[in-house]
């Protein structure tokens, strides 16, 4: 017997992501995705230090193993939950549902999820976030948007990090930005060197603006 199905493979995840969206309420939820070592955790630390005085921030750390990133974040006095996927290469909406319940995420202004370091898999899985943020560091090479298009197409914000290394690499910024714009004409692109505190302000301002617009949408 042949049964026509015509169902999205990820429907179960999409359904849970919708439930997560409701649970998040008017909290802005950001899903940060990038390769291992592109600077995601450093970006988080800088963001907490800059904004924790004005906004309630909570963090979910996704890693395959260890709680090293959550340890780093816990020194910054914000609530943090570590999710270990034990081999899994991405977070799923179900994992986030459990972590969200523990964090009381609805009481936060921003929930930032640092996904497992990987340019491919996390882009597939909707967690119920408002925006995916793609982080690309110049040391990875300017060909990465063309090689891993889905993430950069889906991103609501694109960060090009470690720009202080530009002169030491053959990264062609014009070529990278042209490829990014071909994939995604709307997402802001911010160049920064997070570790050096250089170029971060537009990112902070974008977060402040997005928190406000999420609240306004929720109030409307």
């Amino acid at each position, binding site marked *: *017997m*042949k*049964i*026509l*199905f*015509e*169902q*999205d*493979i*990820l*429907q*179960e*995840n999409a359904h849970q992501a919708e439930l997560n969206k409701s649970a998040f309420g008017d909290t802005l939820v950001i899903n940060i995705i990038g390769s291992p070592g592109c600077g995601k955790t450093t970006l988080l630390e800088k963001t907490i230090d800059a904004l924790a005085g004005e906004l309630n921030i909570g963090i979910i750390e996704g890693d395959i193993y260890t709680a090293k990133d959550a340890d780093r974040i816990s020194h910054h006095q914000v609530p943090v939950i570590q999710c270990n996927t034990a081999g*899994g*290469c*991405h977070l*799923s909406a179900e994992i986030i549902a459990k972590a969200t319940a523990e964090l009381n995420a609805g009481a936060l202004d921003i929930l930032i999820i640092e996904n497992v370091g*990987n340019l*491919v*898999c996390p882009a*597939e*899985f909707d967690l119920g976030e408002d925006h995916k943020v793609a982080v690309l560091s110049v040391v990875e090479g300017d*060909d990465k*948007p*063309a090689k*891993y*298009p*889905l993430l950069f*197409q889906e991103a609501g914000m694109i960060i090009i990090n470690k720009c202080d290394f530009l002169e030491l690499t053959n990264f062609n910024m014009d*070529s990278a930005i*042209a*490829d990014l714009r*071909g*994939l995604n*004409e709307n997402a802001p692109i911010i160049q920064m060197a997070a570790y050096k505190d250089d170029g971060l302000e537009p990112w902070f301002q974008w977060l402040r603006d997005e928190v406000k617009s999420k609240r306004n949408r929720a109030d409307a």
Partner: protein
Amino acid sequence: MHESSLVEFTLNAVEDKAASMNIKKVTLIHLTCGKMRGAIPQLMNEAFRLLTPARPMFHGAVLEMEETPIIAKCRACNSQHEIEEFHDITCPACGGKEYDIISGEELRIDYFEGE
């Protein structure tokens, strides 16, 4: 590596549907995956081989996966062309640079067979 998750979600969905129709054994599952989604057919089959022994409903079942190319439609002249690589994309018909992707993003269970 997300192939194992994709196969697991597929098995969950098919198992639920099959159970609701009183189907005891699934013999074939047919998927369509767009190239944009980065699901590698060999890895999908490998994940299927590793995940099905623990699920009796799928013993002996076959996974078929159809890959669809990434097709762009030029905003200037509406012609369609396949994208092999997302670098310096130019419409071969008119030289236009702006396009919309109209195919290649599928991730779908089309049908399954069972008894």
